[in-house]
């Protein structure tokens, strides 16, 4: 599956957006400070609310993370692992930019 999400410029550096997949699944797409894009499942596993895209981006000892807007747990953007509770992880979604367009590169 290769889903067109939006124009890359719709996700300014330092922010995230949510995308709705045809399956009903939600993906949070982040534009990290170094220019990289990352995709994670949008649902915050601690609260069950689909809100991770609205979290604040940053790093924890160099690891790029997003902090859930609900209760501030941080997730590694590259692996989906929760750095505050390594037993918890969220699904990652590979995203890529081609010709100014952001795609969800899927299995």
């Amino acid at each position, binding site marked *: 599956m290769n889903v067109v999400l939006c124009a890359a410029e719709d996700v300014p550096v330092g*922010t995230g957006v949510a995308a*709705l997949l045809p399956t009903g699944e939600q993906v949070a797409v982040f534009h990290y400070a*170094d220019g990289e894009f990352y995709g994670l499942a949008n649902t915050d596993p601690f609260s*069950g609310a*689909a*809100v991770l895209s609205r979290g604040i981006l*940053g*790093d924890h000892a*160099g690891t790029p993370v997003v902090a859930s807007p609900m209760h501030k747990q*941080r997730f590694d953007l590259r692996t989906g692992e929760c750095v505050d509770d390594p037993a918890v992880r969220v699904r990652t979604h590979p995203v890529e930019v081609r010709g100014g367009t952001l795609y969800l590169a899927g299995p």
Partner: protein
Amino acid sequence: MSETRRLVVAGHGMVAHRLVETVRKLDTDGQWRITVFAEESRPAYDRVALTSYVDGWDAGALALPGADYAGDPLVDLRLGDPVLAVDRERRTVRSASLELGYDALVLATGSVPFVPPVPGRDLPGCFTYRTIDDLDAIRAAVERSGRGRRAALVVGGGLLGLEAAKALRDLGLSPHVVEMAPRLMPLQVDDGGGGLLKDLITELDVTVHTATTTERIEADGDRLLATLGNGTELDLDLVVFSAGIRPRDDLARGCGLDVGPRGGVLVDSSCRTGDEAVYAIGECAAVEGSVYGIVAPGYAMAEAVAAQLLGGQAAVQEPDTSTKLKLLGVDVASFGDAHARTEGAREVVFADAVAGSYQKLVVDADLTLLGGVFVGDASRYPLLRTLVGKPLPGDPASLLAPSGGGGVGVDALPPSAQVCSCNAVTKQDITTAILEKGCSDVASVKACTRAGTACGSCVPMLGKLLDSCGVQQSSAVCEHFAFSRRELFEIVQATRITTFGELVSKHGTGSGCAICKPAVASILATLGNGHILDGEQAGLQDTNDRFLANIQRNGSYSVVPRIPGGEITPARLKVIAEVAEEFSLYTKITGGQRIDLFGATVDQLPLIWRRLVDAGFESGHAYGKALRTVKSCVGSTWCRYGVQDSVGMAIELELRYRGLRSPHKIKAAVSGCARECAEARGKDFGVIATESGWNLYVGGNGGTTPRHAELLVSDVDSETLIRTIDRFLMFYVRTADRLQRTAPWIEELDGGLDHLREVIVDDRLGICEELDAAMAKHVDGYADEWRGVLEDPEKLARFSSFVNAPGTPDPTISFRTEREQPVPVLLGVPEVRT
């Protein structure tokens, strides 16, 4: 375990509590069962802080930790049950309720206020000043007395008399103080200092009559008429006697124990009376003939007796009788041989009439410090006091001169110097706690050594000792910045950096996080960098600020329009009702006098705002670390008790400070009279109307750690009120820590409320002009944030749930009905552990 013995304690004041506490700590195998007879109806409380009771009438604030011995089966505290007699032969005490045998008896009955034999001293309206009950009685009398000119007389111009005068002034009375001696605080202060003290006290609206006495008091209808020895007549609501204290040695006299030359139960240096089973401690004791009217020697006596009860030996040393007056805005301190009575003593005086300060050191021929007096500026007191009996570290004049360079630092103190005199804690005790027990901040030093837990005057030195031991008291915001919020504020202000990116690359490390980003966003907003969602700022904001609404548990948001002062027209109420119906929002009246609309999705927010903004509403900043509401009571317009227009003032203040970004939320209130229906003293700043103006209280908090606000200025006009609040808020916004409300901020401020008053009322730092200008800039620059989004298509575009499906709401959000309103369907929390 050895056989248990019975310890009986007569009296439960601060000193008795220290005794029981210490015995219980040392007596690890339960040798002693303790019975405490207390005359007052409450457990021992902080009598030293009695005057602060007037700030909130909260007896709980004076409580001494653990003084009720709850859950300790070995301590029986009998409140309101004084010891009536002691039978030494049979070793029993008798109270109203029982007769009890003892193996050891400790008298800790304190003292009573001395009431000179003035004719009329028993009239209703005459009070003493020693207990919480005394203050309650004074307060009740003040409330009974009518409006109009209200005055009170304090008989006695010593330390306690001046404290009483302050309390009466805070109660809205004009106090007069009569002192027989030619100067105030004759015991502690010399003539030079006394003159200045009188001027400073007079500035506080206290009328001082020295070198005269109170001849008589007469009833005059329901008022009192006092005639002074110099012929002055005073028309009064009440009289408070504070002319010294007399040790309560009645029990000792009754059972034939010796008393000292000036009263007090005569004891030796280990606090034993002539009867080896009976001890006396605290203010009722005459240790080798001397009675001490302050708490520190009492604590030393309590600890000495506790040690003896557990088989040790201990004697009390010559105590430190230094004093510092805690009177509003006037610094007075005296220590050691303040009157240069030692042979060969020399005085070095430094008086600055313009700055209003008088400082004197007493030294001997070898420049050993013997004592000193400070009036007007006691900043050197905590340090110099500790040097008594030791050679001065420099030339006396240079130690006193303002910033004379020669000032002493904590490093100059010898290890044996007593830093905390209340609890007899030396510099060495403190440095050991820091270096060997790992105390790394003031709070842990206090907990570990007890220093700073009584009068508090040594607290600033604890911080300095931490510094001098090389302990970095970390105030860093997070792993990305080694600075405190206050330092970041200064950096941003000085460098005029306007983006987080530049700030973190030049002054921090990494790419930031959910702690520093919102903190910096708040600083940028305070310094006026446009709409909070402009450019890069959007990504710095917490979700609430980013969506200008409050996130709820299911990912929906709530909307709170501003309703200044809680005043709203029926027409506007209707608009809120219509919007709530149209968007199916759960509707609730908040605790902050406004209306909260819950359950909006991100897509709906701008549509809801459009309707509200068109009807004249604006954002209520329920989401931001900013001014929330200025709550008001109905005030003089309607209320039969109101003395000022509290609603009008609340609205003016709310409109003035709306949108001001701050370290934490700011709440305020205005009450129309002292009945305080707006609960202003629970707010960051609270205004209470007076007959002729307003009282301003600051540093209140509800929430997790409630605290009453304290009086900052009284009876000011509206203009002064607003100017003072302007400066208070700006100083707070610039200097507080991240997520620090004003209550802990003031508590941590070096010098506390007095320092705050110096900065924003007296302009000691010379920054008021800048604070005023900053507030003016805020007021001029204010714009509604909701409108800002509605008018900017780019910002508006961010209000969609999905970037690839604008207009589609989040399908996981759904509602059910409860009590006729929509509420979130609880989200199943996915299995989170892997």
